[in-house]
């Protein structure tokens, strides 16, 4: 098991976010989240729903990258043209995404960095579906490089997704759908189980210390049980390899390090 990579450990850990989620659409944006959702469906949570990455629902998760002779088999249909009615605004979805910034309230940013809204220093994608996703359905996050540039001090530059910041809550609004679940990074697994939904470290990847995580984070973290993040088992590794035949996962974390650090 010594050749297990950190990316594979992250996929295995992230798949836990989807355990027992029920009949909802599991969306993983990016290789690690997508493999995590797919692994969850093929192991502990077969009732998850999932698309081919475009418009069709599949019961067999579609492998990443060029498919050769593999043809996805479509069991259902969920195009963007009915995505909000069926999945997002009904709360029947759990998305795992990678914003550019996240703050201590779980507020996320994908829109712009620095400057003003009229003239941002760096324009990124725009808020996409984050405002709707975060007020209606569960969300989790994956970050391949845990740094204080991502986990920012203060608040994110543009609040694109709802967090647990009381100052941002317009009175009378219904925030019952706000449900931030898990954060998986190259260093640890966190959740929002701290005081007033504060971010809390729940497990550390092999060889990582809490102090190291704290040093890479722009705000104080709470301590959970601080167990060691488990290595994926042989079954999970086989499924991951099958779902990612071109080893795209090797390009996600810088230098594709092993799950267990070399000392």
């Amino acid at each position, binding site marked *: 098991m010594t050749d297990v990579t950190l990316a594979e450990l992250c996929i295995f850990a992230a798949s836990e976010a989807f355990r027992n989620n029920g009949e909802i659409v599991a969306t993983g944006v990016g290789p690690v989240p997508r493999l995590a959702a797919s692994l969850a469906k093929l192991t502990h949570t077969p009732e998850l729903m999932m698309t*081919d*990455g*475009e*418009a*069709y629902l599949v019961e067999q998760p*579609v492998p990443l*990258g*060029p*498919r050769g002779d593999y043809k996805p088999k479509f069991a259902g249909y969920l*195009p*963007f*043209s009915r995505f*909000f009615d069926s999945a*997002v*605004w009904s709360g029947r979805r759990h998305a795992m995404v990678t914003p550019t910034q996240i703050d201590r309230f779980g507020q996320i940013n994908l*829109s*712009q960095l620095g*400057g*003003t*809204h*009229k*003239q*941002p*220093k*760096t*324009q*990124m*994608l*725009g*808020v*996409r*579906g*984050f*405002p*709707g996703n*975060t*007020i*209606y359905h569960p969300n989790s996050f994956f970050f391949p490089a845990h740094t204080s540039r991502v986990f920012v001090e203060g608040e994110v530059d*543009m*609040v*694109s*997704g*709802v*967090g647990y*910041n009381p100052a*941002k*809550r*317009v*009175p*009378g*609004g*219904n*925030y019952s*759908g*706000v449900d931030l679940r898990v954060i998986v990074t190259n260093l640890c697994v966190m959740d929002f189980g701290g005081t007033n939904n504060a971010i809390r470290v729940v497990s550390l990847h092999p060889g990582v210390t809490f102090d190291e995580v704290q040093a890479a984070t722009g705000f104080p973290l709470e301590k959970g049980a601080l167990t060691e993040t488990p290595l994926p088992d042989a079954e999970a590794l086989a499924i991951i390899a099958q779902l990612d035949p071109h080893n795209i996962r090797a390009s996600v974390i810088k230098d594709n390090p092993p799950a267990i650090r070399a000392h």
Partner: protein
Amino acid sequence: MLDKRMTAADIVSQLHDGMTLGIGGWGPRRKPMALVREILRSDLKDLTIVAYGGADVGMLCAAGKVKKLVFAFVSLDAIPLEPWFRKAREAGQIEVLELDEGMFQWGLKAAAFGVPFLPTRVGLGTDLAALGGLKTVTSPYADAETLIAMPALKLDAALLHVNRSDWRGNVHLFGPDVYYDEWFAKAAAKTFVSCEELVDRMEDHYPDQAQANIFERCFVTGVVEMPCGAHPSSMPPSYGWDMKAFKAYADAAKEPGDWAAVADRFVGKSEADYLNSVGGKEAVAALPLPIF
């Protein structure tokens, strides 16, 4: 007039400076790029563009045609950050109304239904409302819930690229996803469609595919046949996107970084010239559909 055939130039002549123009499709998919190129060949200016943006938005921004942009994202998928849109934003060149993807289609629906707004939870707890001047409403029922009043996105005109149409504007849209084209059509005072294939009477050619008529011909003002009219965006099932062309377009934003110097390459003197420059219909037809 039941015969709605027009030329691309006729369509652009019906547009005017300062108007609000919706553009169908999604990112690098199903964009009416031939009509966008026709705008780029014209003197039109000061446009408010409403789009799930891709290179349509990037090019119009680069050419200085855009006064204001209503958007949730601008992206070329495999090239996530649209480089010409970024340049325009980072230069502070355009006004914006930034929206969530779902709010955006909700605003189109409000316009389609002729109501001033539709209520939604989306936007609460984010910076969207403050930045966009979006107001809230209170439910008049016992729940008294506070909601964002998403204003109608009324369009003076919409441009769409569809798979086929007949002279009367009976359109067929198919492929895996047709995004919000239906709602752009219904939100607009006038909708102009370009199509891959134009037939005289749809019922004589494709009587078994009427379910692909996702909006009715009363929402169509003008029709023009423009095969390959979505290039370099994708138009399934006919062709995929042209990532090589997108890459060249993105690279040009860095070097030379000046739209005037490269516009000829990406717009062409005429649509025929443009199509020749990308290898003609055969080359476009050979573009593989994208893998997601």
